[in-house]
């Protein structure tokens, strides 16, 4: 579910003089040398700056309660009769908002729409098809948990997932009720079996398209991700059925994808509330497959690699959020702020930054896009090039105060621009691309 229209100018420009730039570079060099001798830089058991956790890494209140999908902003808007997606009105003179851009986006959604009754990527439209055991060989058993992990992950990758993590089902992250239109179904009734394991699937969203956010072109990659979620989770659920297990492929529905993604070791939570993967940054879509396959051991552990520390200093997503939905508090909190807002769409009890989803979704409605400015402006949102991997590694062990410098340098290097009207031209530029198999 997604959409926006951009009317504001880029918010991320900073007017540094050349002298300031040189100063910044000199300070950066000195600080990096200093960082090399600080205690924070020493190697840890799981590698420099990378920590694996046996337990869920975010603090959870003992009073935490499960949430209902009927209370999400999407359904609140439905109930209020606010359409956050309207029929597009292309502007052929506005980059990223032309008929071509809208068509690219809407065409990308077609698979998700077609497969929605079987493996719904978008929540609230259909319940998934429940695959009941139909084993090709009734005697089949996985040799051990490690083999099950390896086989399922290989199959998921084969079906198109870029990331796969397997974790034990945790009822805390499951909705109490799931939504089918305006009808609420109890989670247990809708799933029809007792899930033991959740297979988390991650799908990369293209970088060049995301540079054009917020615009329909920026949405196109996200929407395509939903189609991939439907296709892969449906295939994987069918795969598990043929090995003798119950399975159901879902996208956004049934459970909270971010905490499940954290539990499955796919990334860390962020200020903007999205999962941040080490390889793709926040530029991913997440799907889930629930199954009653029960494993003795789960090998994917939650990981942290300095993202929370970076988010405390960076603020790019909050600065660039057109609806001011992302908080600017330096520290995460256990609940949303008492600011007079009806925070009924938010579930307190987890230490994180609480995003005002109603404000966010209102901007979707106003702009007829799904915005994604936060993803575009995030310094972790980079294409797969060696120098970005190098900086990401450096951020894993650099001390907190340097993260602000790294975030500033990111802007000065030209990354993280939102409302970037040159980005669509780069996306559509045919120069240097080869479609016939000749060339790179």
């Amino acid at each position, binding site marked *: 579910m997604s959409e926006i229209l951009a009317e504001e100018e880029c918010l991320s420009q900073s007017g540094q003089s050349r002298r300031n*730039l040189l100063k910044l570079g000199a300070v950066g*060099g000195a600080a990096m040398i200093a960082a090399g001798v600080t205690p924070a830089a020493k190697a840890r058991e799981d590698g420099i700056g990378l920590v694996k956790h046996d337990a869920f890494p975010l603090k959870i209140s003992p009073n935490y309660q499960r949430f209902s999908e009927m209370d999400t902003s999407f359904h609140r808007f439905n109930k209020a009769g606010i359409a956050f997606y309207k029929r597009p009105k292309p502007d052929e003179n506005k980059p990223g908002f032309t008929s071509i851009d809208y068509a690219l986006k809407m065409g990308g959604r077609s698979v998700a729409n077609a497969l929605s009754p079987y493996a719904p990527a978008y929540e609230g439209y259909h319940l998934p098809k429940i695959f009941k055991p139909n084993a090709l060989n009734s005697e089949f058993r996985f040799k051990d948990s490690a083999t099950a992990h390896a086989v399922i992950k290989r199959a998921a990758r084969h079906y198109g997932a870029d990331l796969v993590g397997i974790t034990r089902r945790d009822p805390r992250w499951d909705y109490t009720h799931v939504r089918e239109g305006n009808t609420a179904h109890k989670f247990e009734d809708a799933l029809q079996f007792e899930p033991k394991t959740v297979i988390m699937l991650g799908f990369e969203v293209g970088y060049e398209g995301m540079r054009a956010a917020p615009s329909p072109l920026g949405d196109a990659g996200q929407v395509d991700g939903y189609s991939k979620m439907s296709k892969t989770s449906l295939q994987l659920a069918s795969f598990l059925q043929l090995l003798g297990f119950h399975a159901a492929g879902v996208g956004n529905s049934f459970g909270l994808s971010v905490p499940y993604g954290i539990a499955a070791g796919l990334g860390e939570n962020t200020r903007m509330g999205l999962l941040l993967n080490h390889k793709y940054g926040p530029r991913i879509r997440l799907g889930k497959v629930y199954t009653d396959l029960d494993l003795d051991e789960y090998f994917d552990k939650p990981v942290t690699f300095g993202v929370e520390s970076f988010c405390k200093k960076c603020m790019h997503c909050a600065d660039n959020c057109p609806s001011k939905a992302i908080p600017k508090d330096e520290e995460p909190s256990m609940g949303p702020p008492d600011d007079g807002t009806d925070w009924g769409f938010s579930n307190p009890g987890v230490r994180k930054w609480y995003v005002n989803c109603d404000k966010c979704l209102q901007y979707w409605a106003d702009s007829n896009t799904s915005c994604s400015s936060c993803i575009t402006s995030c310094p972790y949102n980079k294409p797969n*090039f*060696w*120098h970005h991997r190098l900086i990401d590694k450096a951020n894993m062990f650099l001390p907190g105060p340097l993260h602000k410098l790294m975030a500033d340098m990111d802007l000065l*290097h030209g990354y993280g621009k939102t409302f970037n009207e040159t980005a669509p031209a780069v996306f559509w530029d045919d120069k240097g691309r080869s479609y016939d198999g000749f*060339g*790179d």
Partner: protein
Amino acid sequence: MSGLGIFSGIEVLFFWLGVLCLATVQGLIWLRIKHNASWLSLAVLAMGCGTMIFDIAWAVSSVLEKEPQSASMSVLVIFLPGLLIAIWGARLAMRKPTIAPSIATES
């Protein structure tokens, strides 16, 4: 930058970086043998050349990923300091050894 359609831009880049690194090492050896450059000057020069080579890698990669501002910014904050360090190292390396007055008188 396609390497005759066989290699990607990054592959071609890293090939030439290898050539540059080899040329740098050969230059340092030449300075040591022919000009009897001090180890300190060679270390400074190596640091400067290494920084410049690093920036070439960064800048070309930025162009390949279509972020030219990153390339120009890197020239400012990486290449120029590297150039200054390299010039300093080269001046140290090429400096003629001073002869103490007492020794000069004796000879």
